[in-house]
């Protein structure tokens, strides 16, 4: 005998909704492929409409169950699903995404049809026809918003998660998509106020600065903004809040990683070996970009007499290897296999600088609550940066790591309330908890 009236909260109740949502997104993908094969050129408005409507509707329908469920973070089935546990589906998605990046960067003519579908939007926003980068920007922003809604549904029991996700959605849509487009419309330089050197490396390259200064008052302001953000605001904000103010609240790369990449965060490598590789790589990239920038300035100061084309080659190299291959193809294409923050962890020079501040001069830390840790491993598993959070928590030590982007997921998923992201006095942040006797 069973009382079925009490079985209100069936965990699979949302399955149908998720299936419909996923089908709609697949339909949007199909439309995009058909458009790319040429249909987009002749019927741009129709395909634009189909892609946007299918994907937005699909994303929202997919997310409904998260909002209907009793609030609380559920990672049920993540390690069983071939989509999230490096199974066939995950590899399929990885190949698809990597392929898209390769075509986007080096064979955009294959995307011509798809690019044309964006023309109506592009001319509305920017007064000029779409190009591959506008297409990319639109899809990127769309992904952040749709998957952002899903994220907010999933983590809605935790206000820190909701707020920071709204924040990255806002910065992506406003600062990284609409404002640069409007600037173009107003015949001003296309400028991203939410990206700074060294992530947006060219913003401190002599060519860019010359160009901006020559384009008038707004351009001068842009140069000023870039300098202030890189050299004044960044250290101050990072001292007070840790690198999260940027990586988890503002940055567009972070935005995509946290939204589109969220289903894959558990696939980051937690081994000590990966940590070693990470430190070498990310700091090498930092050295590379600093060197490139310095060379370019030296060269421009000497009017190109010292290095001639060599410094240009250097910066092209950087642009190709780091700007395209690393941040795009590997950084995003490999989400399903290597976790959502591959680029942020192994490649981003901005993350490297912010990390050095965070590690050595900051009030930020993740506090461990006494001896409450049960070593379950949820925190480490869901840390997208591959930090073995548990290794610290189970010793009663605070977590102060250069790579921590302050996403707060470790704290959100901990079943014992052990972890808390805090900005407290700098003194004593490395102190660990020691238990005292009763007497």
């Amino acid at each position: 005998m069973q009382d079925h009236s009490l079985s209100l909260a069936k965990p699979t109740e949302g399955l149908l909704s998720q299936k419909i949502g996923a089908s709609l997104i697949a339909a949007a993908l199909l439309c995009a492929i058909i458009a790319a094969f040429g249909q987009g050129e002749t019927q741009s408005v129709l395909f634009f409409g189909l892609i946007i409507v299918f994907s937005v509707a699909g994303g929202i329908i997919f997310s409904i169950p998260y909002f209907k469920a009793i609030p609380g973070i559920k990672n049920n089935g993540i390690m069983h699903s071939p989509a999230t546990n490096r199974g066939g589906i995950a590899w399929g998605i990885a190949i698809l995404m990597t392929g898209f990046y390769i075509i986007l960067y080096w064979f955009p003519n294959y995307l011509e049809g798809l690019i044309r579908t964006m023309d109506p939007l592009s001319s509305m926003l920017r007064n000029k026809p779409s190009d591959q980068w506008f297409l990319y920007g639109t899809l990127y922003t769309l992904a952040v918003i749709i998957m952002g809604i899903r994220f907010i549904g999933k983590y809605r029991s935790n206000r820190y998660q909701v707020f920071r996700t709204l924040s990255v959605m806002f910065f992506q849509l406003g600062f990284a998509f609409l404002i640069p487009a409007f600037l173009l419309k107003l015949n001003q330089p296309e400028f991203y106020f939410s990206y700074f050197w060294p992530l947006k490396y060219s913003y401190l390259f002599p060519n860019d600065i010359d160009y901006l200064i020559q384009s008038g008052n707004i351009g001068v302001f842009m140069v000023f903004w870039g300098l202030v953000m890189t050299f004044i605001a960044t250290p101050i904000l990072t001292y007070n809040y840790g690198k999260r103010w940027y990586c988890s609240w503002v940055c567009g790369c972070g935005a995509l990683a946290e939204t589109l990449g969220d289903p894959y965060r558990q696939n980051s490598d937690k081994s000590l070996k990966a940590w070693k590789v990470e430190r070498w790589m990310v700091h090498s990239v930092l050295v590379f970009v600093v060197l490139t920038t310095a060379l370019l300035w030296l060269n421009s100061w000497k009017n190109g007499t010292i290095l001639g084309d060599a410094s240009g080659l250097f910066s092209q190299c950087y642009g190709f290897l780091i700007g395209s291959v690393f941040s795009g193809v590997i950084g995003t294409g490999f989400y399903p296999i290597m976790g959502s923050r591959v680029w942020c962890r192994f490649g981003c020079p901005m993350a490297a600088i912010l990390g050095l501040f965070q590690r050595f001069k900051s009030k930020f830390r993740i506090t461990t609550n006494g001896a409450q840790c049960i070593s379950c491993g949820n925190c480490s598993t869901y840390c997208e940066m591959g930090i073995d959070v548990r290794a610290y928590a189970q010793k009663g030590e605070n977590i102060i790591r250069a790579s921590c982007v302050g996403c707060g997921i470790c704290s959100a998923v901990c079943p014992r309330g052990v972890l808390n992201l805090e900005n407290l006095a700098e003194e004593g942040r490395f102190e660990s908890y020691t238990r005292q006797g009763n007497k």
Partner: protein
Amino acid sequence: MNIIIIGNGITGITCARNIRKINSDATITVISEESKHFYSRTALMYMYMGHMKYENTKPYEDWFWSKNRINLIQATVNHLDTVNKSLKLDDSRILNYDKLVLATGSIPNNFGFPGEDLNGVQALYNLQDLEKMEKNTSNISAAVIVGGGLIGIEMAEMLHSRNISVTMLIRENAYWANALPQEEAQLIGNHLHKHGITLKFNTELKEIRTIDQVNVHSIVTKQEETIDCQFLGITTGVKPNIKFLKNSSIEIEKGILVNEFLETNIPDIFAAGDCAQFRYVKTGEAPIEQLWYTGKMQGETLANTICGNKTTYDRGIWFNSAKFFDLEFQTYGKILPEITPEQESFYWEHENGKISFRANYNKSDRSIIGFNFIGIRFRQVIAEQWIREQKEIEYVIDNLKQGWFDPEFSDAYDKKIAKSFSSNPIN
């Protein structure tokens, strides 16, 4: 010095690691039957629910053990010879020791219900149980759980995640009533109910039924109610795992008897963690501690003693935590299900029925005894400090904010609690 530790749970492993920290020469061997490497028993439920894989539950990478020269043997110890200081393993190997640590943990209680060994009837303690549960619960629709404790509720959440309907039989009149005061028990019961778990209070198992003599088919309660189920989880507590010591000269009662140094009656043999039972207990303290935290603290204490720095085990101010579906629970100090006549209790509950706060204090000097938090994370250091310094309840209520540990931007309830406290006539 040749040290052998039986059991690679939190107790044995903490002991091994701490011995290595103090003494770099000792030979350390850990023998355990369940798994080669240390994993977190507390994460069993997360493996089943697909939050983690087995790999994720190992707190140390596999290279850690050889780097720290801790030898691992996966085998069962069948016999202990205290005269020759040797052990016999199931593969007939004989190992000698200078010092021996027994950290063999627990096994589930069973009461010998008829039908207990039918397919689909099981407890949950180790990896083998988890594997069994995986098999027993594939393609089933209904389960019954006997026992309303912490493992019972974890099992309920596990089954629920696979869309299996769950009925819990609870002997008491509320969930976990032998540890929780009425209000908290009620609150948690309501939450379970919202998740669709059926709770049957004041109900005990009478009979397990089968049709085919192989699989469980239904159960009957003492009230003669029949409940169909294809899975029956028995979660009625655990007891020390000491069967291989039954005929040895080691003194045992329920567990292996130890003094405050965790020494058994035989020199050079120690016991700690779930399997140990204290000979002398202060009033209000349990003779057997079956917790992750206590196992860890005992393992650490014992490492000192073994390395020549004889140390008394002191559990410090009591604390514990748990999670009931979405509700986090933390407790500091000793909160009894019912207060004694010398005590007073202040309880506050949020109108959403998911958050609560309790502070118990002494009537005479108004000094704080302990706290229960549901849906609120609170700093252990602060709670401990207040309890140790016997702060007055008024001070505690006024300063609650100091201990708040909820994620940024969460609501803080300290003001609401203070308001409710000041408007409460008994306080």
